[in-house]
């Protein structure tokens, strides 16, 4: 009886799990399928699921019209670069707040988070003027700095919660053995928080890869990443769904594959510690 109930429960959870998974994956699947349709078939009503004339024409057209590799390279440099820069700044910051808290630590953390509450468009014109005056418009250097700053509060918050899980006594022991602050962070704290740092790294690479406000508004031709590449395939007058789907598939493919391979680390990092 108990065994039957367990099997039933397992079955129910499996069905629910698969349903939720398929529901979440369906838009991506539909985008993928549409990318292999002709423009006419893409808007056909009722839509066809698998039985249509498959074509690679959209992918060829995109290769003819756009420099995908240049955009993908920009996306890679910007997302990885801004996250690494962010970690370099955030690790010492989170370390200080986790292990030497003052009565203002909580306020500082909240203040950092509050910067995420400002609608980005409110800061567009001042930011644009700064970029113009420093000659940073349409440069990877400028965007690296912006993306790093945009994601910094999240990185600090994530690292802070991971560091809080590590017993302070271990760091005290290292100090007793004569380790200075840098050695303490690099040789003791970082290895112990590796799962947390890894998941922060991965999550922020994904966030920076998908960022579409600053990357669209502060770039033109040279530093434009894949967000600009996708935006170029939407049209106010004319059918574009199939080509847009092909562009989207190409744009999300690298990050999707990365997420797939690193899902173990991501899940482990996000569930790291007893209270999460």
């Amino acid at each position, binding site marked *: 009886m108990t065994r039957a109930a367990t099997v039933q429960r397992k079955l129910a959870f499996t069905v629910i799990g698969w349903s939720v998974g398929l529901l979440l994956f369906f838009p991506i699947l539909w985008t993928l399928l549409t990318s292999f349709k002709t423009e006419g078939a893409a808007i056909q009503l009722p839509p066809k699921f698998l039985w249509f004339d498959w074509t690679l024409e959209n992918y060829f057209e995109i290769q003819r019209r756009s420099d995908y590799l240049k955009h993908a390279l920009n996306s890679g440099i910007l997302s990885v670069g801004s996250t690494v820069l962010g970690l*370099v700044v955030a690790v010492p910051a989170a370390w200080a707040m986790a292990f030497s808290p003052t009565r203002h630590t909580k306020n500082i953390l909240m203040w950092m988070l509050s910067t995420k509450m400002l609608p980005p468009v409110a800061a567009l014109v001042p930011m644009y003027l700064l970029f113009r005056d420093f000659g940073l418009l349409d440069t990877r250097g400028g965007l690296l700095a912006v993306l790093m700053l945009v994601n910094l509060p999240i990185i600090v918050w994530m690292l802070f919660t991971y560091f809080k899980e590590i017993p302070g006594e271990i760091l005290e022991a290292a100090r007793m053995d004569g380790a200075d602050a840098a050695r303490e962070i690099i040789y003791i704290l970082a290895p112990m928080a590796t799962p947390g740092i890894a998941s922060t790294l991965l999550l922020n690479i994904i966030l920076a890869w998908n960022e579409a406000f600053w990357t669209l508004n502060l770039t033109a031709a040279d530093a434009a990443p894949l967000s600009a590449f996708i935006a170029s395939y939407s*049209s106010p007058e004319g059918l574009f769904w199939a080509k847009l789907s092909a562009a989207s598939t190409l744009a999300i493919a690298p990050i999707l594959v990365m997420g797939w391979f690193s899902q173990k680390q991501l899940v482990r990092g996000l569930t790291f510690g007893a209270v999460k």
Partner: protein
Amino acid sequence: MKTLQRGLLALCLSALAAAASTDARAQKLTIATVNNGDMIRMQKLTDDFTAKNPGITLEWVTMEENVLRQKVTTDIATRGGQYDVMTIGTYEVPIWAKQNWLVALDDLGADYDVDDLLPAIRNGLSVDGTLYAAPFYGESSMVMYRTDLFRRAGLNMPAEPSWDFIADAARKITDKSAGIYGICLRGKAGWGENTAFITATANSFGARWFDMNWRPQFDSPQWKNTLQFYVDLLNDAGPPGASSNGFNENLALFQSGKCGMWVDATVAASFVTNPAESTVADKVGFALAPDNGLGKRGNWLWAWSLAIPAGSEKRDAAKAFIAWATSKDYLELVAGKEGWANVPPGTRTSLYKNPAYLRAAPFAKMTLNSIRAADPTRPTVDPVPYVGVQFVAIPEFQGIGTEVGQQFSAALAGRTSVDQALRNAQNLTERAMKRGGYLK
């Protein structure tokens, strides 16, 4: 520790190098454009320009219309100088030219033949007689209809139909059980979507956005007639979910044979008659946008145009490019490579005297007549203080137009009544005009 320091130094240096590398831009023109068929065709023909103008290279930045508008507006307002040539419409040109944001295009060369530009289009892109943007392609709106459905219903479309005829025909053609809807019109909210269509329609009903003192006129009987007519017509003879249909949704419906008529941009003519995309390509007829016997037709005027922002440091090269892209020779170039039916329409008088073009494009005459029938300086029956047929060329219009469009869309979807939608439109427009200093 040293390794970390070296790593950080390398990271900073690479960031600086990346920033510096983009400064080597000798005579590279950065062109911001929309993803429309004619623009994409121009990108493919870039080699012709670079062969004739060695030393100038072109970098295309193609964007979705709303993204383009946001980006180029930010860039031009701050004189960012990211773009040397911008693709803008008839809405932006008069506003930006008055702000001194655009370079005057009064010297595009002796061969350019500026007098060949269609007068309605040229006027829409000029301020005080000076041209500030060169038209790449122009469009108006007209009726596209299914000749087979009209024949079957015993109807005969006049060349210059009235709104009463259109409404009557739409109701007769509608066969909801067969999935055929008499008329497809824009319902999706947005100043460039339903507001554009309804404003142009309102002109033919004698309505106007503002009186000569900038007082909004949504409380007038003409507006009530316009919106009631539009809502009733689409409820009786329109497709389900019409309040979320824009240009592309209606294009898809028409091409798949679901619409008996579609009143929209003349540029759609080449899409609906293209057998590769349209299931009804050989069954489409054209007529002028409808009227109400008041002397104004419900058609609009728009031109995607090329302009040089005042922040560009490569004005001469940019002018050379614009002169090439909007010249008669460019039309010949497209015709030679892709046929006359594919040349960008609606900009030059000479194109409409070209027998080869008239043979290849069955919709050419209708396009020309539609463009000629639109007058941006006298868009409606009564005088108005603004320029623009389907828009009001003031900076506030993008915001007001979209908000008013949301009210119209809500009335169509049945979420509010026609009277309430007009009251809301009147109130929100009055508020915005007071804020803008137009009204005391």
